[in-house]
């Protein structure tokens, strides 16, 4: 399986069947794929060549000059054969001038010096040039802590400044898009954002105006940087020139705990880092996974986390609108449910739930009467953008189908059953009746309405607070059949509990315990009965997921 998106370039990945060449890096002979650029090749051997403008997924422009290295090619004899040194390796004729690593492709017998005195001097020079007109407002800059200017200054810069002239001034606090603010004084003109917008987002709205030291990044007159991938420019901006309106001035990045998880905004399942501090999520950033989202994610998915901190979020179990406790709620609800015939019960679940939750839900359904209980999900369809966003806006449709929760056409039957009054007990998991197309009048007539989720349902007899995607662990299967993992970044607020725990307890109260005490055990129980998960564990899913179409022949 390949990445959902198509990168214009993949400089860091060698294509299949690329021959290897022998290259000397800092005196050591190693083998690297022919034609790879020096920065990417050296990185394979833990030789980090600092760079600003180079980005492995964008075109190479070579403008920052930070990756200058010494480079040489084999000395040739009269017959155009390499002259060999005593060790049998080619003698290298070093070029007098430093070369940029990003645009220089490795070839047989090439020599590279990544840290020679000349190279160090070049870096020191470039660092000084980049800083002379930089505002040095690090104390209030959002990039502080993850700024390449800071990082490389620390490693390659100097402590004193020789610059006593007046600095160039440029526009600050420029509103260039719905979600982006630009500070031109901080910009180092690396052009990553310009190339990203043009080459990846297909929205060529950024460019430079003016000349020389007065060069200014700007949006094309009358245009805005408003595309659904605009916030990726903030990620790839090596400095604090482009900042996210959503995140800026909110949190110092070094306080953020980063939790590896996935975005649940659509069935692509972009891999993300959840940046949280204590009980609050501050941002999502894309996490590299070449099989899914490469290094990117859409703005919609990135900003979807705010519902977690909705001030009206349901955080206490409610019975008939009155605050209760979990023990009472589960016991009473189980008792009430047992008073209905299976045909009178219906379940509306969500393909936003994890496999573990859906698996346990199918157990609850069995305990309450099995197949006679109508059960379905609410499908959500948007428009695939040809980049990352999928048409299926549910993150785990595959899982819901696999676990028997999604049953095509059943939602319609549930809807008419509720309207007719044949369904008297309606259990709604992480969805709303409105989205299911059930009218308030019908709902009012229904004897028992149970709502599990983050939002209050005023007509539900039971409101059971559960966890957001950032507060729980579990797995989902994306639109391409890749099993991926969510991880818990923070605790659920108030008395909210993980969905799987609530469902397990309800099932236990209805039909006896099942010995499941952890998500791992829920997965294990699921793997025992669902062939697609055979021999898998949550641990085996790993940070980058598993392609079930390959390993377990999921169709």
């Amino acid at each position, binding site marked *: 399986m390949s990445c959902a998106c198509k990168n214009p370039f993949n400089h860091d990945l060698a294509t299949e069947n690329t021959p290897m060449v022998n290259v000397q890096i800092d005196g050591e002979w190693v083998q690297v794929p022919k034609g790879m650029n020096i920065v990417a090749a050296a990185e394979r051997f833990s030789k980090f060549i600092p760079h600003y403008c180079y980005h492995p997924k964008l075109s190479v422009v070579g403008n920052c000059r930070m990756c200058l290295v010494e480079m040489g090619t084999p000395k040739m004899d009269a017959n155009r054969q390499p002259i060999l040194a005593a060790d049998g390796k080619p003698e290298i004729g070093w070029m007098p001038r430093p070369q940029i690593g990003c*645009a220089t492709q490795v070839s047989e017998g090439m020599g590279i010096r990544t840290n020679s005195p000349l190279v160090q001097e070049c870096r020191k*020079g*470039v660092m000084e*040039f980049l800083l002379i007109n930089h505002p040095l407002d690090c104390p209030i800059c959002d990039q502080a802590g993850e700024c390449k200017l800071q990082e490389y200054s620390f490693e390659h810069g100097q402590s004193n400044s020789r610059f006593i002239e007046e600095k*160039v001034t440029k526009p600050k606090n420029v509103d260039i898009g719905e979600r982006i603010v630009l500070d031109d004084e901080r910009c180092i003109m690396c052009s990553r954002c310009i190339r990203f917008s043009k080459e990846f987002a297909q929205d060529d709205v950024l460019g*430079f105006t003016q000349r020389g030291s007065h060069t200014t990044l700007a949006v094309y007159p009358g245009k805005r940087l408003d595309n659904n991938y605009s916030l990726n420019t903030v990620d790839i901006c090596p400095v604090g020139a482009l900042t996210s309106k959503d995140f800026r001035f909110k949190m110092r990045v070094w306080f953020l705990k980063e939790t590896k998880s996935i975005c649940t905004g659509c069935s692509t399942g972009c891999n993300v880092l959840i940046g949280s501090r204590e009980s609050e999520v501050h941002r999502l950033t894309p996490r590299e996974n070449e099989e899914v989202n490469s290094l990117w994610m859409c703005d919609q998915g990135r900003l979807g986390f705010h519902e977690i901190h909705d001030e009206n979020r349901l955080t206490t179990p409610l019975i008939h609108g009155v605050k209760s406790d979990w023990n009472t709620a589960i016991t009473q609800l189980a008792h009430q449910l047992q008073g209905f015939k299976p045909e009178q019960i219906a379940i509306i679940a969500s393909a936003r739930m994890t496999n573990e939750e859906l698996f346990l839900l199918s157990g609850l359904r069995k305990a309450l009467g099995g197949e006679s209980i109508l059960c379905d999900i609410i499908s959500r369809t948007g428009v695939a953008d040809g980049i990352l966003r999928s048409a299926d806006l549910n993150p785990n449709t595959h899982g819901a189908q696999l676990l028997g929760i999604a049953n095509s056409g059943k939602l319609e039957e549930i809807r008419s059953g509720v309207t007719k009054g044949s369904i008297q007990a309606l259990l709604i998991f992480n969805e709303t009746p409105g989205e299911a197309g059930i009218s308030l009048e019908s709902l009012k007539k229904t004897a028992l309405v149970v709502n599990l989720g983050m939002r209050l349902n005023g007509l539900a007899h039971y409101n059971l607070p559960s966890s957001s995607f950032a507060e729980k662990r579990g797995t989902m299967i994306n639109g391409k059949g890749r099993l991926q993992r969510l991880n818990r970044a923070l605790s659920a607020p108030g008395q909210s509990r993980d969905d799987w725990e609530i469902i397990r307890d309800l099932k236990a109260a209805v039909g006896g315990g099942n010995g499941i005490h952890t998500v791992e055990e829920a997965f294990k129980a699921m793997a025992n009965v669902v062939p697609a998960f055979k021999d898998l564990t949550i641990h085996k899913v790993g940070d980058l997921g598993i392609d079930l179409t390959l390993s377990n022949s999921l169709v």
Partner: protein
Amino acid sequence: MAIAETRLIFKHIDSPGYTNDIDCYLKNGGYSTLRKAITMKTAEIITEVKTSGLRGRGGAGFPTGVKWGFIDPTKNTKPVYLICNADESEPGTFKDRQIIHKDPHQLIEGMIISCFANNVKLAYLYIRGEFPEGAKILERACNEARAKNFLGKNILGTGYDLEIYIHRGAGAYICGEETGLIESLEGKRAYPRIKPPYFPAVLGLYMSPTIVNNVETLCNIIHVLQMGGANFAKLGKPNNTGTRVLCVSGDVVKPGYYEFEVGALTLGQLIYEVCGGIKNGKKLKAIIPGGSSAKVLKAGERYKIKQKQADGTMIDVDLALEDIPMDFDTMAAVGSMAGSGGVIVMDETRSMPECLANISEFYAHESCGQCTPCREGSLWMKKITTRIRDGKATVEDVGVLKNVADNIAGRTICAFGEACSWPVQSFVTKFKEEFETVAGNGAKK
């Protein structure tokens, strides 16, 4: 007694009654070389150019035949483009302008022959925005040539088609850098391209093989074919063949343009015999020999260099400034360059800090801003040189200035890095004492 000029390129320029229309050009034998060229095999023409030893007249002095040789029309699936670089912007250089204004058909004929030789069907003439009159003249010349079937479809019945488009720049020095020019021609900012991989011969205009030649170079093609490459090579010196148009400006009695065989005269002869010496009886202080980006030469300097003799042997020579022959190799050997042929002469009353501040201001204004060292360094150098000129600096500033230049040269995308730092490096090194004295003048007051 003045040394006689050898006028090839400027043969008709300024001669009485010579006008820039096609009738006058034809009367003087114009387009006869084109008629000859179209009877030749293209490979023959290229061989003649290679044999001639002609080197590019734009500034870098790259052998034209070798440049053409990088294009292999038989291997190309893409069209080959030829671009005439008429973005003459190097301060102190005003030769191409004369050709364009006074003998445009010489350029058009040279271009057509060069295009024919390289199987080019579409050529561009990129003229700087500050030459509006020149652009009009060239447009008219192209129309005249088209009317006479020297240009357009089925040229002179050969079946060969060629179109030339005149494209005006918008006022940027960097458009004279060939890959910046190509970007500009494609409608983008004139950001020079990285080389590798974007060598014009391989990935030039519209990612197709492209030849970029200077105005004077293309005019020379006519004379190479007229005389034959071997005869052309007899002009000048080995590896420095043909003639060169020198543009002399500054403190001489008779500034202007002069055409000589390459290396046929020395700097001293040029200034004292051809140009009538230094104005107002003053003494020579310094010379910039090849456009403002060339390293300055100081009066009284002596140069110990190796010089190639006619028989190929090398001998050590010790030259005074005035004895330097005006050719590519010797200019390089004495640490400067023949460049664009713009010779700028400064007399003893000139303040070197003031001259450098002027040059640095130009380069700070013209840096395209694409790559870091030049973008930031060129303006920094301007600011320091301005302070030095104004006496608001210290001795330390002079050292910083030199070091800033050192951090630019050799580390940029294009040769502009050298263009802006070479003057600084050479001025500050050669006139260190003057810089240090002037720097602190203001502080002392």
